[in-house]
């Protein structure tokens, strides 16, 4: 189902493990990285590669929240709403994003660009609130930075600042 180069990467991953079945999750990550989600066909491919049943793979996919069974927007915005981010005003940030993009949590904008999701603590509590855009952590977020980021992405431009911590803010709305 995949090209030779991809199959080779999969085989390299398999070779790292003493037992094939350990490669189920790494292969699912690999597939999702490429396709944006895990299709039923991909589940069967992973099952074949690792020697477990397709039902087993499906069970794994549905257990772990990071695996998706359908396509999301080009940019998935994960808002951490757990305690430390809550204390530092993520609710305002999330409300702002929903209004700006005109979608609710779990929805994708009609142009297929943005999906909003809420997630549990991302391990970035010291630079809260954090918004993870696809894989990247944008930390110390406030409405101004979020606007700048979303506007750039919507315009097909590079993000205006790199992922990671932002300028240390003393106080913003919602803190």
């Amino acid at each position, binding site marked *: 189902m995949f090209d030779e180069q991809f199959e080779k990467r999969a085989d390299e991953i398999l070779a790292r493990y003493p037992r094939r*079945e350990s490669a189920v999750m790494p292969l699912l990550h690999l597939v999702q990285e490429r396709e944006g989600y895990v299709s039923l066909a991909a589940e069967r491919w992973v099952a074949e590669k690792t020697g477990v049943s397709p039902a087993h793979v499906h069970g794994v996919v549905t257990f772990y929240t*990071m695996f998706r069974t359908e396509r999301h927007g080009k940019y998935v915005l994960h808002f951490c709403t757990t*305690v430390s981010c809550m204390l530092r005003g993520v609710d305002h940030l999330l409300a702002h994003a929903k209004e700006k993009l005109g979608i609710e949590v779990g929805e994708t904008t009609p142009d297929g660009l943005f999906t909003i999701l809420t997630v549990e603590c991302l391990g970035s509590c010291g630079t809260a609130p954090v918004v993870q855009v696809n894989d990247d952590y944008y930390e110390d977020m406030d409405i101004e930075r979020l606007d700048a980021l979303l506007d750039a992405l919507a315009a097909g431009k590079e993000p205006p600042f790199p992922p990671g911590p932002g300028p240390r803010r003393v106080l913003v709305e919602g803190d």
Partner: protein
Amino acid sequence: MEKVLTRNVGIEGSRTIEVYRKRGGYETLAKALKMDPDAIIEEVKASGLRGRGGAGFPAGVKWSFMPKEPTPERPNYLVCNADESEPGTFKDRVIIENDPHLLLEGCLCSAFAMRASRVFIYIRGEYTLGAKVLERAIGEAREAGFVGEDILGSGWSCDIVVHRGGGAYICGEETALMTSIEGKRGNPRLKPPFPAQFGVYGYPTTINNVETLSCVPFIIERGASWFASIGTDERNTGPKLYGVSGHVKNPGVFELPMGTELMEIIEEHAGGMLREGKALKAVIPGGSSTPVLRADECRGLRMDFDSVAKAGSMLGSAAIIVMDETTDMVAVMERIAHFYAHESCGQCTPCREGTGWIEKILRRIRRGEGTPEDLDVLDQVAANMQGITVCPLADAAAMPCRSFLEKFRDEFEHYVRHGRSPVAAG
């Protein structure tokens, strides 16, 4: 205190093996490989090093449960727990992203002491940057001969594999973590058998936290008595990473002696309260599963395993969440309840149902539809979840709930009576 675990943080190129070696890195591994593995275990025991993952179990004692003569058919394994998912916790990430070779050297020294031939580093799936940094570091270490066959001519071989999680808090629990490495859903299993007898693939396995393993090279290099000289007493030793978040001016990870006073950490290191003139109200001392402390309970409290336990809470992952007087404690508890309901793996009824009930009742109270009886029901549900499940997640959900209710009862009652929080913002 001199920086130990974080001494390379902020140094240009700290992720590279060149810089790490220039600063003395991997010399301890060479030293360790010439030692008797059991002597290393004894040294770690004597250092008083206790697990930094949450439970505080003495590392050397845990290591001594591993078989002394593993065979190729039944090898010993070491797992590094880099799942870091307890809300409020962000300390291991500092080591992983800034000083990956320190973690690798810690893993290798520890694996050698336990005669382990393989190390799995289980890193939470969201830490994609961390996983990449580790992969690159392992490649460098392999090229330099520190990972792989016959390491530094010692005759000992060891491989390191980074295994990414998939966004499930429960996989930080050691048996769930091992199940996850085996390519399955991350359901915890009953202990015994303990991992040292029956771990990954049924092989003897030891699981330690990132910070725990990162302490090991320093113990070997400088000696157990140096390590034990830092901290409160012989049961609470070594340098410690404290993560401070919430209502402080300067949140972050601070490396300080084990047992540093909580108020010193908040006021001096974390810059004091975020908003001028707003008083401290409460602190969660060790991640969201540890019982909350009122401001008056924080004064004079040393942040070590035994002192925090004596104060009725737990050091946990030393993830200090600070809340000022404007905080709606019922809202915070609802958020915590949501987390545990979301993360319960569902295989034990008291946990699956209990975490859901707690969340539902709190949600009702927050909507202004709670009754005075709800408060007692909440406490009963939480009490009935404790100590009877396969893994401690149910306790992790029950403990904060009961402590919030006990210590901020007036706020819950105000909610039930008036349908809103007594704090101004509510």
